């Protein structure tokens, strides 16, 4: 089919159908013509031959009749008394006999006659060339007897003459002959409808009913004398002079002449030719009808197809049609139905896609897109006042991390449910993504936001029940007002976002956007891009907070804390840029920078005579990044310190997110003889099982337990327990947030290994720390000397 289509001028269905129709028709035509031609030719030839045979019989019969007539005439004359008399006196009076013979010859319409006596001598003859007698028995037979007499062939008949009729003795023979040429007459042509020619036994033309010109053709032509039909051109090669002929022998004894019956080839095959013409005409008409049928059928298919194509084109442009054209052809009709179904399916899927595009799959609330569209629509429609509220859940990430995403999702669904059921009119809730929700409230006066804020804060008054879990949740809420804070959805959302983030640090329930907040948020945004530059430009510094060995009352180390002194914004607290660094991945470089700075500082102090163990905070990202051990050994090489005197502080949750990888990394670090410490111990959801597996040497008790230790009995129990736990696990303990002497002495009493806090010193820049250290050492020495 592919091969075929290559040769087709046009690949349309109609053209193909037409071509196939034509091809089939052509094959039928050719086969029919060939078959009919052969059959008709055979039949026609058979008929021509049969006609020729019949005609030959007619001619032969006619000659035989003449022969018998001649015999009968001779017979009568031979019985005539005067004839007998003349014959009897023939030898004495031949002249009379000859004249009588001539007379009788005319009567019986013969060409020659003569009398032979019973001694086979010629008594008298009308032709001088009759000199030798003929065998009378042959000539008197009832058959056709030809003789060559003189230069011609004759039909010869003879009757015996008996002087006395009843006598057994034959007295003489009377011969009469008719020239063979005389049998060729126009009458035969009329009788047989064929041209008759007579030939001598050796093939010389005697006479023919054909025209003179054609006769010449006969005498010169190469004729076949077999029993079948043959073709000869008697003229100058013209088609009209083609004759079909058959030959027959006439007469048996003593010789036979050849009869040739010919008919113009055109005439002979007239019926055959006219039949062929009729057949071709018939097939041509059938061909036209077939073509017409092909056109009608193909139109019946292609027209509805074209209409269907138009419909599908419309559908592809997104225009749905009410009715798809129908067709009486079942295949087209089913195609039409299929297109209708397809349109239905497309409609359905479009709806689903729209649902996906504009609705949140988890909560069923409108999504951010629809939220923005809706807001846009409202503004476009001339809404005068509206409030855009954004909120996100506090510590939702922790919930996800510790209770799993399934629980997190269920929680989000519960919140969405409450949002949807808020008893406030003109509210449009949406889930903007993650734990972020949004609300559009159409209000009369954008300054009266109280009902909205109250309603939203009410959402979180009741705890959320998840199976057996009861959860108290808080959310940060930011509100932006239209048209005061922004004229378009993007700026309104940004304002609400800024307001919301402003709550985060302040433990406020909600904030309404103010221009000042924007400044802070702009700074926040620029920090993201500036952090990397800040590392290189020395805007970051390490501050050191001393760690006191409680047993020996000696400063043995310090925790290194990163401080960013921005040239424009001034001091930026770590809890603002560390999360940023974690988000952008810059935390790795930050950690590396901190490690290198700490080691360089440590080396410097070492040279000045102070050996200090420095502690550096490691981000959870550093733990999943296997590069950390390599970085450390590289630093050790550069600083030519085969043994790094470092403590790495890791939060519990950092280990919890990917415990197996984290433990692998920790094991590696441990093998480098680094001290590993768990930071903020007691605040996370640490698993004791995990703790057991972790290769750490130190627990750092969170300041939440230490700050009020002196006055809070519960904290004392907790801390005592932690310390006891650590001791049993073979771990050191470090308490941070020590702010008074009583706490310090309590910790020493409880057996805590080290202490850190404002009571000793706040974090200090390197120089200040070194100074403090020198002073503290000096004081301690003095106290010791005093003590």
């Amino acid at each position, binding site marked *: 089919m592919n091969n075929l289509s290559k040769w087709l001028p046009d690949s349309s269905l109609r053209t193909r159908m037409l071509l196939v129709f034509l091809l089939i028709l052509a094959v039928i035509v050719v086969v029919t013509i060939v078959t009919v031609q052969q059959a008709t030719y055979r039949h026609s030839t058979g008929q021509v031959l049969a006609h020729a045979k019949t005609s030959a019989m007619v001619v032969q019969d006619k000659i035989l009749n003449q022969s018998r007539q001649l015999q009968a005439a001779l017979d009568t004359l031979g019985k005539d*008394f005067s004839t007998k008399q003349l014959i009897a006196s023939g030898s004495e009076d031949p002249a009379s006999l000859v004249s009588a013979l001539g007379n009788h010859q005319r009567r019986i319409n013969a060409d020659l006659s003569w009398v032979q006596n019973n001694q086979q001598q010629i008594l008298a003859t009308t032709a001088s060339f009759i000199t030798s007698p003929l065998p009378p028995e042959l000539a008197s037979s009832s058959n056709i007897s030809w003789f060559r007499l003189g230069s011609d062939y004759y039909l010869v008949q003879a009757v015996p003459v008996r*002087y*006395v*009729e*009843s*006598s*057994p*003795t034959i007295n003489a023979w009377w011969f009469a002959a008719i020239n063979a040429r005389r049998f060729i007459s126009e009458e035969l042509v009329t009788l047989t409808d064929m041209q008759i020619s007579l030939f001598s036994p050796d093939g010389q033309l005697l006479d023919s009913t054909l025209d003179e010109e054609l006769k010449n053709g006969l005498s010169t032509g190469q004729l076949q004398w077999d029993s079948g039909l043959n073709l000869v051109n008697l003229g100058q090669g013209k088609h009209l002079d083609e004759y079909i002929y058959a030959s027959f022998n006439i007469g048996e004894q003593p010789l036979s002449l050849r009869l040739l019956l010919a008919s113009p080839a055109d005439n002979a095959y007239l019926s055959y030719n006219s039949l062929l013409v009729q057949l071709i005409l018939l097939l041509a008409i059938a061909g036209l009808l077939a073509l017409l049928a092909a056109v009608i059928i193909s139109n019946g298919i292609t027209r509805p197809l074209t209409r269907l194509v138009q419909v599908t084109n419309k559908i592809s442009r997104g225009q749905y049609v009410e009715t798809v054209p129908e067709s009486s052809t079942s295949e087209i009709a089913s195609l039409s139905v299929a297109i209708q179904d397809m349109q239905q399916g497309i409609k359905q899927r479009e709806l689903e896609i729209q649902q996906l595009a504009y609705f949140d799959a988890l909560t069923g609330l409108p999504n951010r897109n629809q939220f923005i569209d809706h807001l846009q629509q409202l503004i476009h429609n001339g809404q005068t006042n509206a409030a855009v509220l954004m909120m996100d859940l506090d510590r939702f990430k922790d919930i996800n991390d510790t209770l799993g995403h399934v629980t997190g999702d269920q929680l989000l669904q519960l919140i969405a449910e409450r949002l949807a059921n808020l008893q406030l009119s003109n509210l449009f809730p949406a889930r903007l993504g993650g734990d972020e929700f949004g609300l559009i409230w159409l209000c009369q006066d954008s300054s009266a936001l109280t009902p909205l804020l109250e309603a939203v804060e009410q959402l979180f008054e009741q705890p959320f029940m998840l199976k057996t879990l009861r959860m108290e949740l808080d959310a940060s809420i930011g509100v932006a007002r239209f048209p005061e804070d922004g004229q378009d959805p993007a700026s309104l959302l940004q304002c609400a976002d800024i307001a919301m983030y402003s709550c985060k640090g302040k433990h406020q329930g909600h904030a309404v956007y103010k221009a000042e907040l924007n400044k802070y948020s702009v700074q926040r945004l620029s920090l993201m891009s500036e952090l990397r530059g800040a590392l290189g430009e020395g805007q970051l510094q390490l501050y050191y907070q001393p760690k006191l060995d409680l047993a020996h009352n000696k400063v043995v180390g310090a925790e290194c804390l990163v401080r960013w002194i921005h040239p424009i914004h001034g001091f930026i607290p770590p809890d603002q840029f560390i999360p940023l660094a974690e988000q952008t991945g810059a935390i790795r470089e930050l950690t590396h920078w901190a490690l290198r700075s700490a080691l360089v500082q440590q080396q410097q102090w070492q040279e000045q005579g102070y050996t200090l163990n420095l502690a550096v905070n490691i981000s959870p990202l550093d733990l999943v990044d296997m590069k950390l051990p390599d970085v450390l050994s590289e630093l050790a090489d550069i600083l030519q310190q085969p043994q790094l005197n470092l403590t790495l502080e890791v939060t519990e949750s950092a280990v919890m997110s990917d415990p197996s990888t984290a433990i692998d990394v920790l094991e590696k670090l441990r093998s480098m003889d680094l001290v590993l410490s768990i930071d903020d111990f007691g605040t996370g959801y640490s698993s004791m099982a995990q703790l057991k597996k972790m290769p750490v040497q130190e627990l750092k008790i969170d300041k939440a337990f230490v700050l009020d230790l002196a006055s809070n009995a519960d904290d004392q129990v907790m801390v005592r327990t932690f310390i006891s736990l650590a001791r049993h696990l073979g771990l050191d303990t470090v308490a941070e947030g020590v702010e008074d002497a009583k706490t310090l002495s309590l910790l020493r009493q409880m057996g805590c290994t080290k202490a850190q806090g404002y009571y000793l010193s706040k974090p200090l820049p390197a120089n200040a720390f070194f100074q403090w250290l020198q002073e503290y050492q000096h004081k301690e020495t003095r106290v010791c000397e005093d003590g």
Partner: protein
Amino acid sequence: MILRYAILISALFSLSLQAARLDVSLKTSDDSVLPGTVVYLTSAQPLPPVAEGATAEMDQVNKQFKPHILVVQKGTQIRFPNSDSIQHHVYSFSPAKTFELKLYKDHHPAPLPFDKAGQVELGCNVHDWMLGYIMVVDTPYFTQLNKQGQASLDVPAGDYTLHIRHPRIQDDAASLDQAVTIKGNQQVQLRLKQPLLPGADDFEDQDEFSGYE
């Protein structure tokens, strides 16, 4: 008549001393007989001529020649009466005697002389079936075979040539001739070699030949 008797007497006289008899019988090739066959003897010796005024008769009876074969000695006058009530036209183109006689009822034409030996074939121009023969022989010693195919000739003893003739015999005439010396009672038996020519049965049913009249 006187002359005739004189001859007869002289013959009787001259032969009386040497009277002899020839019995001839003839069988056809299929061993049947052919009655009416003419048997006659010729001789190198002069034989007695025909009697002066000797006549014979070939009648037409019931549209047939009667007799079928008439044998006469050369010089015999033959009358052609017509016993039928209808007209006949008797003719002969035989070289021995060519003639033509229109025979009307009760009309008696003059007898015709047959002076030449030979076979005269007679026909009737109005009745094609009529066929008769007159055998003119140059001897007084002739006869015809009877129904048994036998004949006897009483002739003076001497040397003769025996001739057998019949229109239906195809055998060469010369082959049937034979020299016979007749002394006392002589017998000759002959058998034809060739089959006979066809002949009308009528001829065979002719009345017994009455012989020479």
